[in-house]
């Protein structure tokens, strides 16, 4: 039975947007942990570790996110021996994916800190880990904020792909709404508008942060 598209549908779409944000948040946490590891690997003084980090980034970035979603959706049950819900599959896939991108961004920020800072730390007798922790990372964090916020926007948009494996976030809710109201143009425009409302403020913020960073230099 077809029903009219109404404000109720907009309400349900907004509710679904919560799951978009939830998935984004968890993906950011998971990806953040992976990303930190990868970034540290990439700046390590040990060549094989650096290669490992680079390899991870290149492989993950060279495969479409859709493929990662499906590989984990079908692969995790084989590995874990249990059925995997869309939540878990999405979480793992996004964390792996985000980890590569965040790792690459953060590596860039770590490398942006001049060599002399490392040397100063070393001359004081600090170990690699200590240099990282007390000298380099605090400075790198400031540089990292604008591109990280920028990536957050990417992540929010990427969660739309979780719809394909059945995860009910904003886009999937849009598909469901469309199948009952048969108003594809209206539905997807509203969906796009909600994404825009979530992403645009972050984009603006990231740009503003970048501006203040340049001024501070």
């Amino acid at each position, binding site marked *: 039975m077809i029903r009219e598209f109404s404000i109720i549908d907009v309400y349900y779409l907004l509710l679904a947007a919560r799951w978009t944000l939830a998935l984004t948040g968890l993906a950011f946490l998971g990806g953040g942990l992976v990303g930190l590891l990868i970034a540290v690997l990439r700046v390590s003084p040990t060549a094989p570790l650096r290669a490992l980090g680079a390899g991870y980034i290149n*492989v993950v*970035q*060279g*495969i*479409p*996110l*859709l*493929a*990662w979603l*499906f*590989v984990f959706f*079908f*692969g995790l049950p*084989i590995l874990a*021996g249990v059925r995997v819900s869309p939540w878990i599959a999405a979480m793992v896939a996004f964390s792996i994916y985000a980890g590569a991108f965040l790792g690459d961004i953060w590596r860039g920020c770590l490398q942006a800190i001049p060599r002399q800072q490392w040397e100063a730390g070393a001359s004081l007798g600090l170990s690699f880990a200590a240099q990282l922790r007390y000298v380099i990372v605090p400075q790198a964090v400031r540089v990292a904020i604008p591109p990280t916020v920028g990536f957050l*926007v990417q992540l929010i*948009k*990427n969660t*739309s*792909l979780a*719809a*394909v494996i059945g995860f009910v976030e904003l*886009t999937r809710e*849009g*598909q469901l709404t*469309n199948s009952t109201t048969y*108003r*594809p*143009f209206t*539905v*997807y*425009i509203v*969906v*796009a508008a909600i*994404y*825009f409302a979530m*992403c*645009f403020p972050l*984009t603006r913020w990231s740009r503003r942060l970048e501006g203040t960073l340049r001024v501070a230099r």
Partner: protein
Amino acid sequence: MRYAFNFRDIWAQWPSIAEGIGVTLVLTTVTMVAGLTIGTLGAAGRVYGRSWLRMPLAAYVEVVRNTPLLVQLFIVFFGLPSLGVRFDAMTAALIALSVNLGAYTTEIIRAGLEAVPRAQIEAGYSLGLSGTQVFRHVVLAPAIRIVYPALTSQFVLMMLATSIVSQISAPDLFHIASIIQSRTFRDFEIYAVIALVYLALALILKLLFAAIAQIAFARR
């Protein structure tokens, strides 16, 4: 229960896989050309245009970059028909991908245009060149060179993103994967293989761009 990996069934499907690769490459190439064209015009418009041109372009860029490609695809393929405009899957795919890439390339090329030193532009004008001539001979080539890495990265990302058109059943590589999946029931294996094929395509594309850079930016 032990799962028996079976990749042999997948290898048997290689003709279909090859077809899928072909469609993906066609999508990528056409989108890149369209995206580059839109990007150059859009960037020129944003940097040199009057406000009646700059503002709609800014809106275009912001809207496309702050909404997901999948939703844009659905609007073109599912949404427009209810307004009377109907496209087949491939056409809709090309439109959505091109419009999407165009927004990113506009921003990338714009950064390149703005990076060309003012002094060089003045030198061009002072020699009697017209605005179009200055743009073509003095600004565009250095600008593209400056942003070449960012531009080609975006192109590689776009090639991978073409997988999304599988969701409207355009016969690209990813869609072929789901067809093979229903033929062979080897879910994991097919997507693992497809993932590796994309990885290989990405690598080849990067090498191609590196080679183009060597040739195009060589000193003659």
